[in-house]
Each structure stands twice: as C-alpha cells, then as structure tokens.
C-alpha cells in the first residue's frame, strides 16, 4: 500500500458522469465494511478513462455504482445530467438500456445463439424486430472485423473474437457511456492490444465516454486518463500511473 492521500477527481465543465461523496458499505455477518469512502469523481465525454488499483481496492464497486447497477450507501451519481439513483427501478433499468453499454471480463455471451444475435441483445431488449436487430448487429460485427463470424456460436469463436462480439453488443445500441470490466484479462498480449485498439477506435467515436477497469499495465498507454483507487479512495488522477504501480 502507498502513502498516497485521497484526492477529488472532479473536473470543471460538463461531465458525462458526476459522482459525489460516494460511499458504499457491505455487510459481512455482524460487521459492516466500508469499501468506498466519499469519492468525488467526474468522467468527461470523449475520454478513455481507466480505473486501476489492486484487488479489493473498490474498483468494481465504484464502476457498478457509476453505471447504475449497485446502489451507493451515500452520495449521488448523475449520468448525462440524470440523477440515476433518483429514478424508479424500471426507469433506471431503461436508462441503462438506452445509455450504457457493458463489456464483461468473461464476455457473458449466450452460448445458444450466434454472434450476431448475441450482439443484437440490447436492440431486441429495446423492442426492435429480431431480424432488423440482427442485421444491425451484423454491421457492427463487420466494423469490428468479425463480420464473417456472425453466424457462429460463441464456443466456435476464439477468446479475442468473443470479446469483439461483447464489444459489438456494448456498442450496437449506440450508448453514450461504455463500461468495461477487465476487457483484456482473458486475452493474450497481442489479442488484448488489438481489442483495446479497436475499442478506442470504435467506442470513443461521437463523444462517447468509456470507463475501463483494468489491472493490465500492457494497455495503460492507451488511456486518456488514469484513476488509481486504493482502499476505497482515489489517490491518483492523471494521464499515466504513478511509479509505485
């Protein structure tokens, strides 16, 4: 653990995400453990923001709160000007569906449907006709250079290809915020680099915000901004990582 002091990671101007005084407690038996301590954070549009830190530092908790899938114990989060935790449950779910794309570490693709149908899931969930949604998803797969794999099931694809399908699924409904959890953790260095290049090229288009939780120092050079989290507090906000990481 470093001796770094907590800092406020706020920015002036309009923010895509504006989180204020975020704390989060977890109950373990009789004990209450606070994993986030009053975090202030802004994420700007058009930026590739990395959230880095050791295991247990609170990265996953913070990203879950910022994208509206985990309620903070204290504090508020505004995403594109909407106080997301002030929304009703169904409205929050709908807000995520319309505005946020997710890329998971384990991809979480549905094994029984092909790549294009997997990528089309957000559109289908929005109510789009399945054939139209699949056609649009196939275009997205094309943009990610795996258009020829559209009819294959996930288990017929390599890890890198599955991750691209997951990226296509995160982008197909044109969300304004993309959240990625360790997108390169399951990939070799070359595939990981390729996926990140692609993600940077495609995801950052049109002023989208991209937040990536990662341990992978092989891809730190691609970040616009790196936030370091230690023991539930942000201790660094810059374009590179401090030497002790």
């Amino acid at each position, binding site marked *: 653990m470093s001796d770094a002091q907590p800092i406020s990671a706020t920015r002036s101007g309009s923010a895509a995400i504006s989180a204020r005084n975020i704390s989060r407690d977890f109950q373990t038996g009789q004990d209450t453990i606070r994993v986030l301590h009053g975090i202030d954070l802004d994420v700007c549009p058009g930026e590739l923001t990395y959230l880095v830190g050791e295991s247990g530092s609170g990265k*996953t908790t913070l*990203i*879950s709160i910022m*994208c509206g*899938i*985990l309620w903070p114990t204290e504090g508020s989060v505004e995403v594109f000007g909407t106080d997301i935790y002030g929304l009703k449950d*169904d409205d929050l*779910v*709908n*807000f*995520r*569906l*319309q505005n*946020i794309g*997710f890329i*998971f*570490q*384990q991809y*979480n*693709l*549905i*094994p*029984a*449907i092909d790549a294009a*149908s997997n990528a089309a*899931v*957000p559109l*289908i*969930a929005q109510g789009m006709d*399945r054939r139209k949604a699949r056609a649009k998803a196939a275009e997205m797969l094309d943009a990610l250079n795996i258009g020829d794999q559209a009819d294959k099931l996930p288990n017929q694809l390599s890890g890198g290809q599955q991750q691209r399908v997951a990226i296509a*699924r995160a982008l197909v409904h044109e969300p304004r915020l993309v959240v990625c*959890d360790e997108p390169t953790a399951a990939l070799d260095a070359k595939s990981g680099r390729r996926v990140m290049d692609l993600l940077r090229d495609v995801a950052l288009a049109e002023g989208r915000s991209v937040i990536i*939780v990662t341990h992978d120092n092989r891809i730190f050079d691609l970040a616009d901004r790196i936030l370091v989290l230690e023991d539930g507090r942000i201790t660094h906000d810059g374009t590179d990582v401090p030497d002790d990481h």
Partner: protein
Amino acid sequence: MNWIAIRMLTGDAQKFYGLLFGIAFSTLLITQQLTVFVNLIERGASGVYNEPTADVWVMDEVSRTTDVNFPMPSTALEDVRGVSGVEWAVPHLRANASVRTSEGDLEGVTVIGVDDATLIGLPAQMTEGSADVLSRPDTVIIDDVGVGNLFEEGQSPIDVRLELNDQRAVIRGVADAIPSFTSQVTLYTKYSQALQYVPGTRNRLSFILASGADGVTPQQLADRIEAETGLRARTREQFARDGVDFIIENTGIPINFGITVVLGFIVGVAIVGLTFSLFIRDNIKQFGALKAIGVRNGKIRGMVATQACMVGLIGYALGLLGTVGFIWGNSGSSFFKGFYIPWQVPLISLVAMVIIITITGWLALRGVMKTEPAAVFR
C-alpha cells in the same frame, strides 16, 4: 426476448431433454394410472352396463351390487309386476359356479340366468352366434373375455362342452360384454337353465329387471316399487354407481393408484425441479448480464415462464401421447377391453403439470431474481 429464452433452453440439449423426460414421465404416470384406475373401478358397474334394457334393478334390501346380492323369493317377481307403472319385469339370476374344461382345467365362473321368454339380461351384441341359440338345451353363451381365459388363442369355443357344476353345458355363442372387475368368465343361459346349473337355497331370484310404462321416469318407478313391495329398487345409473362405490369402499385400489399418482407428481417435481434449477444456475451469469444491460425483471420473468411453459407443454403432450399409445397398444388385451381415457384425466394431469411447472419455475426464478446485476462484475 422469448426467442432468446427458447434458444437458451434448447441450446442445452441434455437439460432440455431431461426436462422433457421429467414432465413426460410424470404426465404418463399420472394419466396412465388414473386412466387404468377409472376404467378398473367402472368395471364394478359392468354387470349393469352389459344389460341394456332395464330401467330399474329390483333386489333384496340388503343387496348392494350385481355381484354382492341376496336372493329373493320367486313371489317377488309377481309383486313387482303388480306395481302400477311397471311395463314389464323379468327375473335375473347371478351366481358363482365352477367349470371343468375338456382339458381338465378348473375355473370359477359367473352364471347369469336371463329371462326365458324375452332373453332380457343378455348383452346387446354377440361376437359369435346369436341369442336364439339359448333355446337349445344345455346351452350357454360365454363372454368374449371368458374365451381368452378358458381357451388357447385361436381356439374356437363354439360347441365346446363344459362341466358346469357337474352338469353338461355347451357353448354355442360368444357375447360382446364388458369384463367384470375380476375379469371372471361369465356364462349366460336361460333363467330356468341357470336354476339347474346353480344349486342354492329356497330363494334363488337375484334381481328383477323392470321397465316403466310411458310417462313414468326410472326414479318414479323405483320409488313406487320400493313403496309397494318393500324391496330395494335402483335406477340403472344409481345401481352402476353402487358398483363403482363398492369397489372404492371395499378395495385398496384407490389408495394404491393414489400413491402411484402422488409418486408421479413427486417424481415430476423432483426431476423437473432439479434439472430446471441446474439449467438456471448454469445460465445465471447470462441472466445477470441481461439484467445489467437493461432487461427488466418482468421480461426476465417472461423468459423463465416461456422456458417453463415450453418444456411443460411439449412434455405434457409427449406424456399424453404415451398414455394414448399405451391404451391403444393394449386394446387387444382382454384386461384393457373397452378402456378409454375420460376427458377429466388429461385435465387432472394438466393441472398437475401446471402445478409442477409453477413450483419449479418459481424456485428457478427466485435464483434469477436474487441475482444482482452487479454480480456480473464480480
């Protein structure tokens, strides 16, 4: 989203077929056992159903069914004929006897004596010969199930001599009859002949079959006979029901079949519940991802319900087809003669399946609903 739910379900072939097997097996067990049960207990009324013409059965007040009867004095027949509204009344004898075949086999039989003049008391249809053969001496007509019990397959019973309670009897016809509950061989003969075959006490008249004049309902006729003679009179429907009730009350059949039906239900819940839970558990990350992406709980519920309904309907249909196949496949057997699937039975098994699917679906859904979307990041 329902399309995705169905693909998720069918994509895991092992669990999908496991679920179908569970539902189909459970449906088959419940439907088949209930069908056999209903048909078996209805045989308690076969003696009534085999006699197509009588509106009212008259008997001693202690008689309960066609097989459990206490003979009346022969004067009872005239008493009944004297009741106003009686169009006709004829004697009917039912008794047990033993036959020895030409091969030396011994078999217990039911001897039924039908009215000498009108032959009322015979089944409506004959499969071999005609009812007129009863005019010949020592003649008996055997029921078709009895042919299977007494003779080798393909062997004709016609003109075969039997030793019936030490007296000569010749089979000269085969009646198309519903088997009795015990599938015992039944021999029909004239009432006067039956008295010769079956030794007995002073009173020999088992039943009097009666029909009412125009404008007199069977119930009115039964009431009048009871009031004027002191005998017990039951309409055709009432007496058929008495036969069924007797079996229900005096045998372990309802309990045994009931246990099998309950076991079918429990096996269904166990197999389907376990397999469905495993299926959901294997897909919990995908459901979590869908929730995180923005699929509402209502749609998730709809997906699980779609999956449950799909396996439920297909499994139920397979189980029902299995039962139909079982009954159809055994229709040639004398035990299953006349078996049918009452409409209530598929309905009951459908209700059982809906309960199984609801229980297992609800248990599986709990797991999905408990999954926080944030779990996909862990």
